[in-house]
């Protein structure tokens, strides 16, 4: 690439003048996909935050006498000694232990959203670290990238399943196990940006002015990677939500009594023939959430990264 074309379309958001930054922000918001996906997500976050006031009960409470109720049933919810706690409307029915699916699904959203965001942040930070060092220091480059190739060769779900199985199913292990397989893709992305920016005259100028290396990396090189990183982050978030559900569904994720969408479905699968709602309701929640994150990602890509968009993939 010729040196004078330093104003590539995905030039740093940070470096734009305030007025241009605002117009970019407006353009992002005006994008149909971003507002639709983002809107649905905001609604979901809001719903799960005010879940206690939305006709839910303790999502882990068990009442064998109200097991396997069909959606829409009204009935008494008893505690284990048989006393009536509340007259409850089981909007989405109950599972075989009498846990309220509506409550479990709403509280399950908290887990999914937490895992999605945490995995995205972790994968971005670690991938950024690997990508920056590999791209800037030629000595580390080949070793680090061979390591990344190795991680990439292990299918993600298999990697996550093995890690959780070995280290136990806690929130932290689940987040780490899902994030690690995502690191190579982020690292490659950052590395490619670093490699193309490193030769720019302004980086040379910074080196000549004896700017510390960390400052060059963080202030002069990293901002160029922000837009693609945001886009990549949304896709990582979407896939993390899916993988978390898959782990729980296979019985190797978070503890079974915890209210997660995957756990609800794992519990419901044995009697899917008679009570399909235990699998279908959380499935709809899950699909809708992942879809809106993906749609938002597509919109962000279209507005933030015109080069990427032109390629159409």
């Amino acid at each position, binding site marked *: 690439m010729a040196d004078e074309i330093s104003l590539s379309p995905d030039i740093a958001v940070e470096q734009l003048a305030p007025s241009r930054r605002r117009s970019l922000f407006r353009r992002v918001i005006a994008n149909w996909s971003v507002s639709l996906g983002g809107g649905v997500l905001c609604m979901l976050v809001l719903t799960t935050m005010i879940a206690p006031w939305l006709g839910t009960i303790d999502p882990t409470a068990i009442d064998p006498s109200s097991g396997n109720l069909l959606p829409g049933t009204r009935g008494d919810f008893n505690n284990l000694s048989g006393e009536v706690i509340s007259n409850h409307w089981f909007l989405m029915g109950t599972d075989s232990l009498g846990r309220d699916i509506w409550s479990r699904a709403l509280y399950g959203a908290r887990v999914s959203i937490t895992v999605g965001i945490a995995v995205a942040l972790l994968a971005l930070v670690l991938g950024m670290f690997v990508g920056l060092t590999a791209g800037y220091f030629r000595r580390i480059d080949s070793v680090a990238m061979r390591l990344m190739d190795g991680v990439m060769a292990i299918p993600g779900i298999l990697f996550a399943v093995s890690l959780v*199985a070995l280290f136990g199913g806690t929130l932290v292990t689940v987040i780490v196990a899902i994030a690690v397989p995502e690191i190579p893709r982020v690292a490659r992305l950052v590395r490619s940006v670093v490699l193309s920016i490193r030769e720019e005259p302004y980086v040379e100028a910074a080196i000549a002015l004896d700017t510390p290396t960390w400052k060059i990396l963080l202030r002069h090189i990293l901002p160029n990677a922000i837009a693609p990183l945001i886009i990549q982050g949304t896709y990582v978030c979407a896939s993390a939500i899916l993988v978390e559900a898959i782990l729980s569904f296979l019985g190797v994720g978070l503890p079974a009594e915890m209210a997660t969408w995957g756990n609800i479905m794992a519990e419901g699968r044995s009697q899917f*023939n008679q009570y399909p709602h235990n699998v279908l309701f959380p*499935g709809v929640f899950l699909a809708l959430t992942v879809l809106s994150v993906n749609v938002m990602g597509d919109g962000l890509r279209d507005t933030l990264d015109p080069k990427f968009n032109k390629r159409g993939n």
Partner: protein
Amino acid sequence: MLMFLGRRIIATIPVLLVVALIVFMMTRFAPGDPATAIVGDDASAANLHRVRSNLGLNDSLPIQFGRWGWQLLQGSLGESFFLKKQVSELIGQRIEPTLALTCLTLIMTIMIAVPLGIIAAWRHGGWLDRMLMGFSALGFSVPAFVIGYMLIWLFALRWQLFPVQGYSRISDGLGPWLSHLVLPATTLSIIYVALIARVTRAAVAEAMTEDYIRTARAKGISETRVLVRHALANAAIPIVTVIGIGVALLIGGVVVTESVFAIPGLGSLTVDAVLSRDFPLIQGITLFFSVVYVVVNLLVDISYLVLDPRIRY
């Protein structure tokens, strides 16, 4: 040509080495001592020490890794803790259903996704194009197990067209074999179709803007011939590349799909191994799948030679 093959095969060695190292480290750093798992918690210290030295756990990590690697090179993946059989033997027993499922999925996917992508690119922005993009966004978002259960509910329970679950060996007749595989292969192919159709569309659309397409049309040859001989032939490399990368998705999907449809293949072997924390088995399967992934992508690399006559090594 032979030089190229040799170089490519040698290039996979560091990747495989890193994979082996990661898999080895994963089980060594996991909490819990395999020796304790074998002799039980209340075993005497001397007994524990004997089992540990039998397993070679008293040696230093590099020596352990070297010994394990040497065994691997001799084709031994070790012995399963719980099933007391060679891991390679267990993989051999379970490979047929998985192979059948993935091959059928691959064929179905390519037969559906590539034509869809071509038509969508041909009528860029038309209704089929928009429907395809919508479908592929959906395909990335709905988890395989939700699709699987919906298909079971609709086609197996309500209309009873296909068996609900299970697998019939190919030696027991082609009809039952196929009817058991239709629903799982459809489930598994959805995300793969979404991916490949998207990339085909993008690659063909880009090829369609080239001058040689205009020339081909000007020559007066049929539109089908323009699309297949000129556009698709030039778009083949990104498509084949994604088919190769997508194998990782396919392997992850196999684990879930086999679990949903109770198919006794490698996927369910993985879940069994993980649930019983059978370390050698987890190691063996992870390695096996990673090698498959690396080999498939090696084949993809080699296929470039055939697909693009300009590439000469």
